[in-house]
């Protein structure tokens, strides 16, 4: 099944969804050295963002989150892709800067009410999101 989103930053990626069930600010909410969610009481506290297809419906908080995003990408522990519930520049800026510095950026997509749940496997090609069968191997990109 294919779903079309808006590609803010194009690219290909595949991976397993990590969906955040509560809003988060990356600054103060994500440890830039481990990519773990460190906000006390957050439903996904302790989960690591590295390599995931990160689905975030609502963003909040500090404008320092771009820097945390850039640091994750610089260290190679960023999400494989970001799917945001609304247009927002804070996290994509981290990916734009990473591209300027020739570090590995990640695709960023916008989709209102993203239906994806934690554990689902997705393949992303620019604006297209494909749901993979649970036991399917992601196609080589």
């Amino acid at each position, binding site marked *: 099944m294919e779903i079309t989103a808006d590609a*803010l*930053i194009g690219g290909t990626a595949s991976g397993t969804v990590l969906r955040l069930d509560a809003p988060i600010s990356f*600054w*103060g*909410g994500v440890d*830039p*050295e481990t990519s773990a969610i*460190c*906000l*006390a009481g957050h439903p996904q506290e302790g989960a690591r963002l590295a390599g995931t297809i990160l689905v975030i419906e*609502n*963003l*909040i*908080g*500090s*404008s*320092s*989150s*771009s*820097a*945390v995003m*850039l*640091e994750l*990408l*610089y*260290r190679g522990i960023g999400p494989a892709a970001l799917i945001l519930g*609304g*247009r*927002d*520049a*804070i996290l*994509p*800026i*981290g990916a*734009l*800067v*990473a591209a*300027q*510095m020739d*570090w590995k950026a990640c695709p*960023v997509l916008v989709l209102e009410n993203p239906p994806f749940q934690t554990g689902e496997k997705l393949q992303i090609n620019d604006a297209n999101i494909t749901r993979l069968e649970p036991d399917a191997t992601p196609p080589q990109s």
Partner: protein
Amino acid sequence: MQLTPSERAVLAGETASKGTRMAMEIVTGAARILGAKALVPVTSSHIDGCLYHGDSGVLYCEQLAEAGARVSIPSTTNVGALNLLKPDQVRVPADRRHMAFRLMEAHSRMGCRPSWTCAPYQAGARPAMGDQIAWGESNAVAFANTVLGARTNRYGDFLDIACAITGRAPLYGLHKTEARQGQLIIDVSSLDTNLRCEDAFYPVLGALIGRLSGESVPVIVGLENSNPREDQLKALCAGAASTGAAALIHIIGVTPEAPNLNALESIKEKIIVTSGMITKTRDSLSLAKGEVIDSIALGSPHFSVDECRAVRRLLKGRRSKIPIFICTGRHVMDVLAQDNSDASLASHGIEFVVDTCVVVTPILPEGGSVMMTNSAKFAHYSKGNTGHDPVFGSLGECIESALAGRLVRDAALWR
């Protein structure tokens, strides 16, 4: 996107340094992401990107500076990760200290005014009503929009310095009049009149506003006769910008762009705030239970001269049993030094934290686990950033607790 000839020339590398072109690429890239149709000229910037979060940001800013990028509009700096006046205060390994310093230095090299404060609006940066600006730091953004009536979105790291270098920002969101209209009424008029004047009420109300507003621009009704002071509005904005996305809050009778009461009929959504909601929000800002307090953290946003003097009054010459940190800027220290208030406060156990603050860099005592604060922002970020459990209280409760060395509550405060 419609770019002017001069903007296009910068992008093409014809009229500016390579660093300026990199900055223009970030501004136009952000504009595209945000769906902006054009850029807007901005007259000032407040740069959030000078706080060390890792080597990546340092390498980027140094590359900008190296490539000739310089700010083209007055630009203040937010807190860094170091107290440049008292280097030993911050416990960071030498390599990180060096990188944090390089990041601050790169911003100075690009021509920023080294203000190192999260309250630039109390350090001389006072944009006028209607000015288009590009500010970072969520509390400063909320204050500039709400209290000053200037126009900015929340500009995060890298986009803030890119706007400062190019003098442009994406034309979207709160730069435009239509996005500044109130959408949600939050009515506090049923709360106790005296409570609505208390300092400690404002950060709590801010935290509640942040949680209630979501993406909407809230309109607060019921503070018309409370005459909130600037420091109270500062605390409210910081609370709202920590717990939510609030970047503009209209307060009827108080803030310059607030609609008048008659214009409220067009707003459909309305929430009546009860005293129970206030109490619940207040309690949510305290994670520690029990009486143990290891330190007091004040000054998020950075304390003003008035707030420092209030601490001095509350101490009444007594000396604290536990560390009291006051985070503030050099603009305040300079004034305090004029009548030796700084030395007097220090002799009663106050430790000033300048150029930075206790939740962005390791300063709070090692081994301690509970910090008390009068700031909703400190309370919100303390656990994640420092590991210390916060206890929220009024400034009076903080000082009395510091003097007693354990939690002291003022039962009369929350009616």
